[in-house]
């Protein structure tokens, strides 16, 4: 195992395309994950803009056929969830985790490359649905049967099958990635790095990976059953032959609720790395934070039916109680973050702005999620735009802000150059304004009774104004992406040289060069706490053990 005798860092990235395509280096794979996911973010955003353009006014303007609208939001959500947010976070983890635990690479580098390459393949399969007769999948990202079954007014075309195959592929990629993370984290930590000295980011990836390994195969089983129903005459979800339509929902949400934590825990990990660095304080309640993360993971398996409160087929009190309870560990984290900033010395570099944006917006998404935990309230809110507001506040306000915090934070490590701060701030300000304009009005629309997944609405329903605001907001979000893309391009060429440790980081990735050489380290500082570099810089100041 060659971890020493390394080539100088400068040549590490002067390599050709072929080198990138065949690489098994976790850093290059991580970067490819990030780029690939970002491209899919643009694609998913393109579909979202289509949706918003249609909904800006009553009447059908953009789509002549409502079926196409259904394709748009279905593919929008599928792309955003399975090809953007999950792989993006996995990619940042892929880049950061081995560095943070002082390992030379992931445990199974070739499997890692395989996991990555399944993603663009799955994405292309999914999108190729648009070229088939009948178009892409149009039954929502949840694809409930019987609508997703074969039938002239259901989902007759191959688009739905492509959706199934693509998701199976992407799911397999996730599972292999999860196994890889777990083995890496359990077996390849640097000497001295006990479990309770791991960076929080590593902990969140650990818990996420457990969720992935345990929940994603269950999604696969649901997909397999749907595929059998569609293609081999199966009757799993077909009531006329003794099948049960609600069964799919149970199996699907058994995966998809834990999956929403897959989509947010690593972002919480990023925020928990960024906050301490930019406040110059340790994370408040390190251990409590870890237990809360594990608690969310465990509770996450017992709340799935809160998506099915109106089916009349689930035991309401139990799922309501568990859903309420999950607010408690999440609250613990929220308070830990606030307490971390409390009496800190905060510098507002762009990563920190996005981290604070995460706190402020995820809070809203968490609280409006708790509305739906109250079953009778959910009877009113289910399948209305209120839920659309909730899901974007947690997924965009939470996860996406976390992702951008991570990108701004690690970009200098990945490339050796800093992103431009001014452009970063412009990006942040436009984005947070556009985001709230788009998604806050959706609360009102939902309360006023506007259902989800409709291409059009009556002009006298009273939904015109807020829809227009939301559509304008959507395009403002799109505009905010442009300074970011521009920033990346100019900074790659002319950005300020980062040096090894531009932020005065706490964790091991900042102890190697930027970008790091293959196999990452030739030497490591001694690890005596979760902030080894802080210890090196300042000695062990006031180092009481983290309280539980």
């Amino acid at each position, binding site marked *: 195992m060659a*971890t020493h005798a390394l080539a100088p860092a400068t040549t590490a990235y002067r390599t050709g395309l072929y080198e990138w395509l065949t690489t098994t280096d976790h850093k290059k794979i991580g970067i490819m994950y990030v780029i690939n996911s970002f491209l899919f973010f643009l694609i998913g955003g393109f579909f979202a803009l289509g949706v918003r353009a249609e909904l800006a006014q009553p009447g059908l303007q953009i789509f002549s056929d409502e079926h196409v609208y259904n394709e748009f939001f279905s593919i929008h959500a599928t792309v955003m969830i399975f090809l953007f947010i999950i792989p993006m976070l996995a990619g940042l983890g892929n880049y950061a985790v081995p560095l943070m635990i002082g390992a030379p690479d992931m445990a199974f580098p070739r499997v890692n490359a395989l996991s990555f390459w399944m993603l663009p393949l799955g994405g292309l399969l999914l999108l190729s649905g648009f070229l088939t007769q009948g178009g892409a999948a149009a039954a929502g990202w949840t694809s409930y049967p019987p609508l997703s079954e074969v039938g002239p007014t259901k989902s007759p075309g191959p688009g739905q099958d492509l959706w199934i195959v693509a998701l199976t592929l992407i799911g397999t990629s996730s599972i292999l990635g999860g196994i890889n993370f*777990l083995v890496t984290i359990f077996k390849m930590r640097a000497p001295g790095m006990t479990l309770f000295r791991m960076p929080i980011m590593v902990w969140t990836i650990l818990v996420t990976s457990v969720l992935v390994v345990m929940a994603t195969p269950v999604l696969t089983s649901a997909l397999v059953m749907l595929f*059998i129903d569609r293609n081999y005459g199966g009757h799993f979800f077909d009531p006329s*032959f003794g099948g049960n339509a609600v069964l799919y929902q149970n*199996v699907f949400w058994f995966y998809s609720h834990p999956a929403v934590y897959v989509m947010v825990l690593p972002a919480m990990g990023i925020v928990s790395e960024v906050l301490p660095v930019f406040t110059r304080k340790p994370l408040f309640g390190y251990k409590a934070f870890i237990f809360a993360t594990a608690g969310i993971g465990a509770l996450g398996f017992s709340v799935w039916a809160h998506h099915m409160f109106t089916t009349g087929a689930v035991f309401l009190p139990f799922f309501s109680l568990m859903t309420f309870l999950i607010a408690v560990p999440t609250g613990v984290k929220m308070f830990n973050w606030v307490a971390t900033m409390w009496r800190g010395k905060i510098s507002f570099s762009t990563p920190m702005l996005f981290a604070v944006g995460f706190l402020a917006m995820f809070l809203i998404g968490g609280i409006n999620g708790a509305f739906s935990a109250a079953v009778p309230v959910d009877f009113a809110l289910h399948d209305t735009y209120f839920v659309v507001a909730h899901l974007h506040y947690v997924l965009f306000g939470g996860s996406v802000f976390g992702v951008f915090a991570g990108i701004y934070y690690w970009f200098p490590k990945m490339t050796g150059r800093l992103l431009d701060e001014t452009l970063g701030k412009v990006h942040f300000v436009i984005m947070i304004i556009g985001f709230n304009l788009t998604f806050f009005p959706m609360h009102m629309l939902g309360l006023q009774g506007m259902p989800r997944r409709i291409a059009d609405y009556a002009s006298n329903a009273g939904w015109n104004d807020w829809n227009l605001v939301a559509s304008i907001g959507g395009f403002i979000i799109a505009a905010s992406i442009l300074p970011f893309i521009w920033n990346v391009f100019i900074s790659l060429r002319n950005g300020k040289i980062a040096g090894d440790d531009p932020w005065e980081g706490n964790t091991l990735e900042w102890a190697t060069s*930027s970008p790091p050489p293959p196999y990452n380290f030739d030497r490591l500082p001694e690890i005596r706490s979760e902030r080894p570099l802080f210890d090196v810089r300042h*000695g062990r100041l006031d180092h009481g053990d983290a309280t539980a």
Partner: protein
Amino acid sequence: MTAEGALQPIDATGAPIVVQEGHVARGISNPILGMLLFITSEVMFFSGLFAAYFSTRAHNADSDVWTKPQQLLNPLSLILVATILLITSSFTCQFAVWAIRRGDRRGFIRNIAFTFVLGIVFLLLQGYDYTLLFGEGMTLGSGVFGTTYFTLTGFHGAHVFGGVLMLGVILYRGMSGQFSSKHHDAVEAVSLYWHFVDVVWIILFSVLYLLS
């Protein structure tokens, strides 16, 4: 790129720097841990299918849709032979592991070969059993019972097939002398997988044939 960075202050404060000597193997090896996790995910996959089975069964508790085809399954038939063979193969697989741990390469190869053949025979028997059921009119599409039955046993069969392929690779590598008492992680991993496939079958057999 300059070399001035975090490493500078490390030296400056004189903090101790440990030269990493590579990672000493601790506990179980990476491939085996990886395989255990993979098996965990497979367990969850089958749990999903089993959940569908039990839910569908409860849904159609006293209906002909369920009970009629159920009666076609007879535990005291060819399937029992297949079951016994598969269980036997788990033993031969384990003998192979013990043999290679002792460094007994010939014993290892013999037992893996047995396991490999038993796996193939199981698949052939299951295929034959399928044709019998098709003859009785039970297929994936004949009703929910057929759907759940063939999905569960079919996916199990696919896993047996995967296992047989792995055994083939192990056999080949064993014959070309790639394993020793010190170096045989792949063998351990494959045997874990094979035991898992066996256990799934035992549960399947009990649920589908015995607890009906």
